[in-house]
């Protein structure tokens, strides 16, 4: 079977398709390729001079934009996996046409996340060794890392099975991917939610919010990339895919409502919390992060896309694309705000000491921004190449 896939005819087909791109296609492949190279160089340079000098994170704010970008990517990946599973694993035929692309994108986005994370972890080599030799079963990070490792493997096998038209096996590994993905992702939420020292994060809210948020991100991502894929080849969307887009439109509207509900209930109890939690809430609602929150998270991430999706009725694809692009941009800021606002209240804030009487500040350095760009460019290049290599991710019936 594998020999068949790698046969000279198949290879010739791939090469032909790769040569068939427009000038714009090659421009973007080259552009994102160059950015990826530059950001890898930037990441290696940061490693060489030391992250303490290259990055703007510090003792009181140890996690910055690289962690939030990692969260952004894995949230999207989990969401894509969940969206793909609706059709592919749970048999909802309406979702079937997008499943293959969603599985492929879920692999790309998690790899993008791991790429960014590899320039955040100080000693990734030790991670490979001591994750196995001295695991800490009470650590959410350990579970998250291990489960995401398994998740990536399951998704890769699932995608391979789809390519080989082994649909029964693909469904099985797809199911395993969903289970590992949900477990890993809720553990990622718990990484934040189980830190008692940060009132903004602490509580059972985070794991639940992360899963709901993943679904919303996954819907936005699949609408965004499907539109791009068809636009790239100047193709008209066929009827089954158009129906998939319409039903995904309904799903994303539901998910936005759920996230609005979650966001409201994150804020309301926060307003009656302790001094530290109140300080974080105020920073988000009326302080230094209010533009991010109201202007980007709420307006661009929820309200405007919601209106656009409703107006599109699932048929106006350009409107849906615009809405999903805005959402993806805003979701990036949602993750950034979630990570950074959780840290800006100093640990000794309530002690009333001079050193920690004000909120802490953080803004990413150029090295950090470049690494983020690397993750984004990796996903972009791999998406563009994937569309040609896998022939527009056409889904055969099974």
């Amino acid at each position: 079977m594998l020999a068949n896939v790698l046969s000279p005819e198949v290879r010739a087909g791939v090469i032909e398709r790769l040569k068939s791109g427009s000038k714009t296609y090659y421009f973007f492949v080259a552009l994102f390729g160059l950015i990826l190279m530059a950001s890898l160089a930037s990441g290696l340079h940061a490693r060489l001079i030391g992250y303490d000098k290259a990055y703007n994170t510090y003792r009181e704010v140890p996690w910055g934009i690289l962690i939030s970008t990692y969260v952004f990517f894995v949230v999207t990946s989990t969401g894509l996996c969940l969206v793909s599973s609706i059709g592919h694993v749970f048999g909802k035929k309406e979702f079937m046409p997008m499943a293959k692309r969603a599985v492929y994108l879920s692999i790309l986005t998690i790899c993008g996340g791991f790429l960014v994370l590899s320039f955040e972890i100080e000693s990734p080599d030790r991670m490979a060794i001591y994750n196995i030799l001295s695991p800490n079963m009470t650590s959410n990070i350990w579970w998250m890392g291990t489960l995401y490792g398994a998740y990536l493997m399951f998704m890769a096998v699932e995608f391979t099975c789809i390519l080989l038209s082994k649909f029964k096996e693909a469904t099985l590994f797809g199911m395993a991917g969903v289970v590992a993905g949900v477990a890993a992702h809720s553990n990622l939420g718990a990484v934040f939610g189980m830190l008692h020292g940060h009132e903004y994060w602490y509580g059972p809210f985070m794991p639940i919010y992360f899963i709901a948020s993943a679904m919303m991100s996954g819907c936005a991502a699949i609408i965004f990339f499907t539109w791009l894929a068809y636009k790239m080849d100047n193709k008209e969307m066929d009827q089954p895919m158009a129906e998939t887009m319409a039903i995904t439109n309904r799903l994303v509207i539901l998910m936005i409502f759920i996230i609005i509900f979650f966001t409201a209930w994150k804020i309301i109890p926060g307003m009656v919390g302790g001094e530290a939690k109140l300080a974080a809430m105020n920073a988000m609602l009326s302080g230094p992060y209010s533009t991010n929150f109201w202007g980007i998270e709420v307006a661009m991430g929820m309200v405007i896309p919601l209106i656009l999706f409703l107006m599109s009725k699932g048929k106006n694809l350009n409107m849906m694309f615009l809405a999903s692009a805005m959402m993806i941009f805003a979701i990036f800021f949602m993750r950034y705000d979630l990570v950074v606002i959780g840290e800006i209240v100093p640990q000794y804030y309530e002690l009333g000491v001079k050193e920690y009487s004000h909120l802490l500040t953080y803004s990413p350095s150029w090295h950090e921004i470049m690494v983020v760009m690397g993750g984004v460019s990796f996903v972009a290049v791999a998406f563009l190449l994937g569309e040609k290599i896998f022939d527009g991710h056409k889904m055969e019936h099974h």
Partner: protein
Amino acid sequence: MRFRKLTEDELTVKGGRDVSGLERRHFLKMGLAITGVFAGGSVLSAISVVDKANAVEIAEKYPYKPHYTMVLHQDRCIDCERCMEACIKTNDVPEYGYRTKILERDVEDAIGQKREFVPVLCNQCNKPPCVRACPTSATLKDKKTGIVIMKSERCIGCKTCMAACPYNARYFNEERRAIDKCNFCKDTRLDKGELLTACAAACPAGVRIFGDLSDETSDVYKTLHTLKYPVWVQRPETGAAPNVFYTRG
């Protein structure tokens, strides 16, 4: 799962209702509970919890031998920073990091002295959030002393412990390629037979009292079990059960 059968005596004490007079007095001495808020930290005041006390609680209260503890007499600190200097010298702490620090607090409406200093360091918690969060067991409780130690070679530098610590007690040491933190000078002094940490030994004002809380004759035990001293810990709401206490007087 099989449970060990309890003896009659154990059953009596575990009930918590039927304790002898001697035991009751013993528990009274130890019966301290966190009850309120005072001067930024919660007061560990001398309110008896004897009704709840039992043999198991006592064993769990000070489970290490020696159970190293530090009591900081906050009002005695003059911010001379000799503790910080001694710590840096003893533990080879780089200039971009610190294991202990002295914070400054102004109390405008106080009568008389309006400024006080608050020394901070790793609280060597009984339920350390950093130890729970570390993915590779690079930080752990020393089984004998309860000191939160580092196994640097296992540290991947994910900085989760830094985020998890409610006391801002950790920093990334570039030279060791690992997180560094106060370990009560375990490797640099205690293991070599010294009785005090470098900071406690260097303090000219008797701020830092260091000792074994499981030893009833130690200064730390006496301070923490004397009713007249207000005793509190930092950030008790995190449930970390610290082994660094604060007092005045």
